[in-house]
């Protein structure tokens, strides 16, 4: 067993074994019981290459003198409602009410290091550590109560933060009374006993969003809502295209405008004013000349270009022998699937406010990654990281788009330092589209085969620039090879003419679109029902259970496609979660417009912490999924981004909305799995298969715009 530290410290003589950071932290939060605990899965963090930071613990839990419990976490609230589900976890393990939990999130001075909020990992990886810490804190408090009440710990019970003797409820002491006047730190290593599902009192029950009141009254603060005395609003000069170089920049017009401050640094030219519109007007007076690079690609040529530019293959799965598979095959199918670039298009644009004071900079910023942002700002300003304080207010949507860089935080911090006043940077919608790190355009080619019994015997899968997420094989294929030519992140992204990065379930959407379309193509050729074909080709129990659940709820009746009914099915594994969806579409054959009437989704995600939150995420995923499936496509010419606002980037609207039904398939045998992304993953294929079932037209490219659907119908 690992050694544990357990110290009861004198108020005036802090333990000398604590690091400076911890001591400062405890000074900051005052008295009470503090539990420090380690990251949920350090091996995982190290695998992500983001380890090596000075503090190896991942969060704090504090029981205050007033009995309130504060959870400090580097995770941030972007809408995914971890502000509620993490609080549920802490409340349940501590035996306190949900109302008594306060969350402090994404503040680099108060919260210990966290690499960021992405990848459906808050509940999955941070959750277990938080639960263990809360369980440990409860055990500590019960020990203290045992001494206070002169009763053995095993004869004490806890309800709502009150410890009492099981035999005599009047012999009681509250958490607040126990915490008062004592400062206890406990560093948690290994696991404490957490509650089994059968004893859940707060977890597993639907909980209302704890941020709802703030958000419906307009009181919820986002980075753009921070008001600092004397703050200037900055507008920054942007190049007309990625890769453009400035030949001449003339700011003399702006310099003459009363109240305007001009900042000119080598790569940062900005105008600032106390009125954001005046800054905007000043920006318009700047005269520029840029050299534009030759545009190499556009939306139509990019796919061939990417295949040519691809790095060597990495094999992620190999089983059997492809040549053997081809020999066995009664039918062989070859197809290529593509998608263009996708924008995150959060309604809140990238925004930050910064102030520099006494050699320290504080930045309020809309980000999924406050701690990596701290490093970036420190480097840009030449400050030590401990002199950079990143505060993350509520974030107006992320979806991966606020995790790649802290550009706006760096801009605000640099400008605040340059002008000696607080500065806000709030990107316009055109800047947001320009600097968005898009979901990369990607290509998948598949050569597959079925034998005479309609069993898949060949799977030769190549994916370009999207990585292998959700491409993992769960069908029982004897001869299987999966090759990845370039990822959605890292060195290979330099092939793109502008920035790309993670977009909700990165890479998984194109991988599942390709695989589940290919499965349907094979089923159609075999004249097999698409559901039955899948069930006949997978023995994966979790997959079979979600397929069965979604079919039952939908009222699936067997028929080979195209049946004319417009039913499409698709399934996937993502972030440890299994998901199956059925879409019902009607297609106007003359316009090519596809109306999605109904989507049923079955999801099995292990233990569900907040069924209400999980359902909300599924609905959000399905709705957002319709966007990448049917409409969203960034227009560009080389490094020039032609898409500048929502009139040229159609995100899902009320009038698109299908009936959405969700089923959470119970599996309490498994720890909680991801919830923020899985349900977006099968949408493309479910819709493509529904369009095929309605019309007999097979779509190989997303988004499936009316024009593309019409062309496909014509070519039958």
């Amino acid at each position, binding site marked *: 067993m690992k050694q544990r530290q357990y110290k009861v410290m004198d108020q005036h003589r802090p333990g000398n074994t604590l690091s400076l950071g911890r001591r400062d932290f405890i000074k900051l939060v005052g008295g009470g019981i503090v539990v420090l605990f380690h990251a949920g899965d350090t091996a995982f963090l190290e695998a992500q290459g983001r380890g090596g930071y000075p503090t190896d613990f991942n969060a704090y839990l504090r029981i205050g003198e007033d009995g309130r419990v504060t959870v400090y976490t580097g995770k941030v609230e*972007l*809408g*995914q*409602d971890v502000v509620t589900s993490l609080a549920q976890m802490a409340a349940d393990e501590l035996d306190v009410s949900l109302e008594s939990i306060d969350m402090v999130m994404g503040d680099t001075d108060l919260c210990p290091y966290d690499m960021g909020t992405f990848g459906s990992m808050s509940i999955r990886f941070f959750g277990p550590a938080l639960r263990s810490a809360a369980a440990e804190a409860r055990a500590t408090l019960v020990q203290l109560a045992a001494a206070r009440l002169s009763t053995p710990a095993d004869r004490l019970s806890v309800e709502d933060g009150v410890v009492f003797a099981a035999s005599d409820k009047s012999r009681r002491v509250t958490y607040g009374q126990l915490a008062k006047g004592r400062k206890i730190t406990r560093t948690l290593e290994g696991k404490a006993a957490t509650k089994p599902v059968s004893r859940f009192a707060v977890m597993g029950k639907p909980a*209302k*969003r704890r*941020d*709802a*009141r*703030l*958000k*419906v*009254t*307009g*009181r*919820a*603060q*986002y980075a*753009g*809502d921070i*008001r600092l005395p004397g703050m200037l*609003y900055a507008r920054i000069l942007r190049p007309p295209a990625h890769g453009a170089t400035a030949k001449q920049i003339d700011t003399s017009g702006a310099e003459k405008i009363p109240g305007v401050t001009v900042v000119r640094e080598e790569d940062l030219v900005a105008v600032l004013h*106390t*009125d*954001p*519109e005046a800054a905007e007007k000043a920006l318009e007076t700047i005269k520029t000349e840029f050299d534009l690079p030759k545009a190499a690609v556009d939306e139509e040529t990019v796919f061939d270009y990417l295949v040519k530019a691809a790095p060597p293959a990495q094999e992620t799965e190999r089983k059997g022998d492809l040549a053997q598979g081809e020999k066995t095959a009664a039918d062989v199918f070859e197809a290529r699937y593509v998608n263009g670039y996708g924008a995150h*298009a*959060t*309604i*809140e*644009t990238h925004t930050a406010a910064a102030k520099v004071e006494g050699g320290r900079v504080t930045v309020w910023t809309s980000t999924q990654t406050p701690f990596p942002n701290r490093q970036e700002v420190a480097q840009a300003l030449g400050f030590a990281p401990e002199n950079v304080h990143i505060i993350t207010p*509520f*974030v*107006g*949507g*992320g*979806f991966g788009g606020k995790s790649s860089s802290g550009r706006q935080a760096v801009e605000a911090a640099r400008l605040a330092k340059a002008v000696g006043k607080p500065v806000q940077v*709030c990107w*316009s*919608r055109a800047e947001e589209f320009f600097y968005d790190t898009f979901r990369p355009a990607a290509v998948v080619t598949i050569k597959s085969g079925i034998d005479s019994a309609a069993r898949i015997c060949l799977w030769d899968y190549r994916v370009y620039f999207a990585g292998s997420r959700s491409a993992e094989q769960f069908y029982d294929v004897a001869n299987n090879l999966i090759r990845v030519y370039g990822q959605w992140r890292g060195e290979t992204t330099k092939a793109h003419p502008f920035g790309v990065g993670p977009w909700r379930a990165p890479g998984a959407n194109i991988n599942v679109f390709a695989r589940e379309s290919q499965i349907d193509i094979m089923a159609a050729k075999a004249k097999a029902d698409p559901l039955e074909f899948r069930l006949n080709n997978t023995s994966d129990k979790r997959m079979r259970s979600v397929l069965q659940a979604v079919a039952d709820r939908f009222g699936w009746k067997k028929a080979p496609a195209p049946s004319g009914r417009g039913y499409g099915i698709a399934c996937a594994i993502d972030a440890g979660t299994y998901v199956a969806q059925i879409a019902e579409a009607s297609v106007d054959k003359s316009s090519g417009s596809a109306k999605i009437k109904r989507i049923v989704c079955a999801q099995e995600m292990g233990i569900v912490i907040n069924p*209400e939150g999980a359902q*909300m995420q599924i*609905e*959000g*995923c*399905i*709705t*957002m999924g319709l966007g990448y499936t049917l409409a969203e496509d960034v227009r560009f010419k080389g490094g020039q981004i032609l898409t500048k*606002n*929502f*009139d040229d980037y159609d*995100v*899902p*609207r*009320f*009038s698109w*909305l299908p009936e*959405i039904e969700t089923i959470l398939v119970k599996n309490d045998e498994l720890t909680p799995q991801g919830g923020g992304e899985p349900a977006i993953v099968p949408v493309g294929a479910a819709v493509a298969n529904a369009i095929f079932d309605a019309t007999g037209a097979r779509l190989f490219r997303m988004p499936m715009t009316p024009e593309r659907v019409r062309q496909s119908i014509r070519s039958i």
Partner: protein
Amino acid sequence: MIETIRFRLNGKPTTLRIEGDRKLLWVLRTDLGLTGTKFGCGENLCGACTVIVDREPVRSCQLPVNEVRGKEVITIEGLEKDGKLHPLQEKFAEHGALQCGFCTPGMIMNAYGLLLKNPKPTRDQIISAMDDNLCRCGCHKRIIRAIEGASAQM
């Protein structure tokens, strides 16, 4: 040009000495400190900046402040009365009709404008009235239910 502009804001008489062509959104957010009204697109395309002007839902990002002279302006901050939420606010919270919350003030104000004109809208009327308010998190289904719930209660 600096003008004197008088109007009612959330029920209170308000006087500004201000450049009259400045947009209402930025006057609310900077001069008046009412940050509940959000900037999303700046071109009347997303609805995050929706406020009520003389009982009509209006996009404040394109509206010169001198156009509200003598008018009644209501923002999200003006809906709560004596600590009691408006039924729309209550129902948005109850139905979980929000995630990131950034479009929420504009959604609620647009729905408020709808219910002023049409207290008992059909589902199709709600969809049509709300269609130009964008929500990226995908709360549409719950927003419709929240508006229906508020309508039933009012």
